[in-house]
């Protein structure tokens, strides 16, 4: 691991057995794990380049247990790392050697469904896809669809503000959640939002979503459901250049069309995906767009025609329109399998997640090709083209000395580039540990201090998920002090991790 985490507290580690037995008094049976074999499955999340065995794993089943575990840890100075399904791609659930890993996987119940007001109340361990499965018989679904939706939990989605291929039209998690119940670092159980479209007071719910497990542990989630669109059809459009594909995307948006999904793949990704699933992608193009339209049949028919016309005007080399659900699913099969497909090109890959203003696409891709040469590592690009969210996949071999470090440097350079052209470090995967040290590329010290003061509102002792998101840990007492002099705040520079 090439990232520094907070120094471990040897005194806490020495108390492992005692801590485990205290936690067993709260959560009985096998739900407290402290033996090395049992801990092993929890040593990393979806970002497998980083591993760390937790001190103890605890798997509560009730809100009261969560509250008592948090209260006990608070009282005894023990840090806590929350975990949903462990699919984070930014290391959000990476354990700490001196922290309790609080797994929410046993919170599996769907508590209530209001079909008329189109609302579901679920426990946080319910998977994203399970919500849709529970309501699809009534023609409803839960819109955000991260590619890990079969495994990722709704609690984790709330923590990470997860997106998906359809979020340009239907929004991220934050736009589809109405309320949460959560347990704060001191064990207090609290609710933000509810079943109404807004709550009283400040929008604390909005702060909770995307807070990456740093301000509380979500124990219940209320989500909005949408009617499943009557039809969906997709176009597969090939271009000779990335520039033409980018111009086509801009022209579709300028034409007043917000597609349900608009994905782009570059040549390496196209070839890898097609070889993997036989999607029938054109192999003689530099860029491929999948554009999906949904709604009533009249809407799809009209917009398919419009997008075909726009694609033609922007130099499309090939255009195919799906004629059946099978064909539409085949168009998507390659894109959805892009990560494992690229995984066959090299022993390991590292998935990045920056967002850029779309007008910068060709500059960014050109610069990325230069970086690929510089680092001697391949890169394939899949791209949520509608909203400018890039997923460069850097190819490397962790068994070759120095390749992981080179891949990380390459990735960091890509993210710096995203920020430099007016974009951001992460569009949907979160900061976690992965992009933590890059935060100063995007935010000034003043910006980061203001964000950290929010952390202090909820967790003044900084015990919840430490070492994530913020590159420097200021003590809350420091941040709370008022040293205003013409807007200058003289803070001692605390050491970085």
């Amino acid at each position, binding site marked *: 691991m090439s990232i520094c985490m907070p120094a471990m507290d040897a005194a806490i580690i020495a108390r492992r057995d005692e801590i485990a037995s205290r936690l067993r008094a709260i959560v009985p049976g096998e739900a407290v794990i402290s033996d090395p074999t049992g801990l092993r499955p929890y040593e990393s999340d979806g970002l497998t380049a980083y591993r760390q065995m937790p001190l103890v794993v605890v798997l509560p089943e009730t809100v009261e247990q969560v509250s008592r575990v948090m209260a006990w840890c608070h009282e005894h100075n023990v840090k806590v790392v929350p975990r949903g399904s462990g699919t984070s791609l930014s290391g959000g659930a990476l354990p700490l050697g001196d922290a309790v890993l609080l797994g929410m996987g046993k919170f599996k119940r769907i508590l209530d469904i209001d079909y008329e007001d189109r609302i579901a109340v679920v426990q946080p361990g319910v998977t994203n896809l399970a919500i849709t499965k529970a309501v699809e018989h009534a023609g409803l679904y839960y819109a955000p669809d991260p590619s890990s939706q079969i495994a990722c939990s709704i609690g984790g989605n709330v923590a990470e503000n997860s997106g998906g291929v359809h979020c340009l039209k239907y929004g991220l998690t934050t736009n589809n959640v109405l309320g949460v119940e959560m347990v704060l670092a001191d064990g207090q159980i609290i609710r933000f939002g509810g079943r109404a479209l807004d709550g009283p007071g400040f929008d604390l719910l909005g702060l909770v979503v995307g807070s990456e497990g740093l301000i509380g542990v979500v124990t219940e989630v209320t989500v909005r459901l949408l009617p499943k669109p009557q039809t969906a059809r997709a176009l597969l459009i090939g271009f000779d250049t990335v520039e033409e594909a980018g111009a086509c995307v801009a022209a579709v948006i300028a034409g007043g069309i917000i597609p349900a999904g608009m994905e782009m793949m570059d040549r390496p990704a196209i070839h890898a995906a097609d070889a993997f699933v036989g999607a029938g992608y054109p192999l003689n193009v530099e860029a491929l767009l999948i554009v999906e339209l949904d709604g009533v049949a009249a*809407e799809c028919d009209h917009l398919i025609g419009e997008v075909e016309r726009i694609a033609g005007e922007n130099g499309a080399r090939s255009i195919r329109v799906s004629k059946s659900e099978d064909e539409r699913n085949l168009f998507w099969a390659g894109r959805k399998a892009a990560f494992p497909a690229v995984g066959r090109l090299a022993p390991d890959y590292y998935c990045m997640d920056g967002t850029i*203003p779309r007008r910068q696409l060709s500059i960014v891709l050109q610069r990325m090709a230069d970086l690929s040469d510089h680092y001697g590592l391949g890169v394939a690009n899949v791209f949520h083209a509608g909203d400018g969210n890039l997923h460069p996949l850097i190819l490397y071999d962790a068994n070759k000395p120095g390749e992981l470090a080179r891949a990380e440097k390459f990735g960091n350079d890509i993210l710096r580039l995203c920020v430099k052209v007016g974009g951001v470090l992460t569009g949907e995967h979160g900061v976690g540990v992965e992009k933590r040290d890059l935060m100063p590329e995007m935010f000034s010290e003043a910006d980061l201090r203001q964000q950290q003061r929010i952390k202090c509102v909820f967790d003044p002792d900084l015990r919840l998920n430490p070492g994530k998101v913020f590159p420097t840990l200021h003590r809350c007492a420091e941040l709370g002090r008022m040293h205003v002099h013409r807007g200058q705040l003289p803070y001692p520079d605390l050491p970085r991790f």
Partner: protein
Amino acid sequence: MTSPTVLKPTSDSDLCAIVADAADGGRKLALRGGGSKDRVGRSCADAIVVDMSGLSGVVDYDPAELVLSVRAGTRWVEIDELLVANGQMLAFEPWDAAPLFDTRPGLTTVGGIVGSGLSGSQRLTQGAVRDHLLGFTAVSGRGERFVAGAKVVKNVTGYDLPKVMAGSWGRLAALTEITLKVLPRPATSLTVVARGLSPRRAWQAMASLLGSDAEVAAAAHLPAGALGGASITAVRVQGFAPSVEARCEMIEAVEAGDARFRRVGEDDAAAIWGALRTMSPLRRDGPLWRVSLPARHAPDFLDAIKAADGDWLMDWAGGLIWYSGLGAGADVRAEAQRQGGHAMLFRDTPNTSSLAVFHPLDPAVAAIEERLRRAFDPAGVFETGRF
């Protein structure tokens, strides 16, 4: 009564100095955009007014990126013109509160719209201000300039501070620059109406359409007499013409007891949605309540407060009720809470002056709010007592 001191910063650094001075001197600052919502909440005679209209103008607008950045004091009407010219809109449907207070319309600013967090009828399906606020620059109560969010439509980097700034009513920090997500303006919009439904039947009919393929953009119910004649249950269908036509036919074909929807002409549609923006059917001499609650409880709420005696409008398919009655209103708030909602006293009258403007919070949440305010504004510079 002396008129309050007014300061008009023309740069972020001006504003930083103003705030830092106020913090040093223990003074209060009342942020003011166009003044359209001056009369929301109580007057705060001791506060220095900071007129934000000097921070005005478009910073960046690239329609194809779906992103618009403006200075906070920019008038909404100017932005609306710019967006219309580019075939775009703010999908949360901002509105001007001036008609509610009989003040001059057209002055409301983008900062005021974001600060109040008030969205219009389309909020039901398109999201609220908070869902479209991508990023901002602001000056905190420390007199410190900071940014949060970003200028791209998809971003999860750092805490989502835009969410708490939307609807913060000037109590956390002074917004200086605002970045909003913009969306294509629908090519066609049609309104279909059923007449004579009770609030309960209206809620059922609207819920049923919202769960259907009709892809309704907005749904509202106006009681009998609001626009003369029977009650009106209206849904708006918008998008590309062939799709709008197909969806309207779908709605008109629904046989649901007494709920028969028929499309209305442009003038009728404008009158209905205009009434929901200006609250023109509501009496002007009573307190005005904004009640947000789960849509299915709207009919019970109206029954419980005997709303038939007063004036009300139902938007967001039941999720939002504007109520103007003559009573002291304590029952409005209690009943809103009983139904899982909350009530804001949007327009005050002498007999409601003992009530809090915002719905009282659960003590645990109130304690977090208090710490949140101190996190942005340790000296209480923006704590004017208005709310």
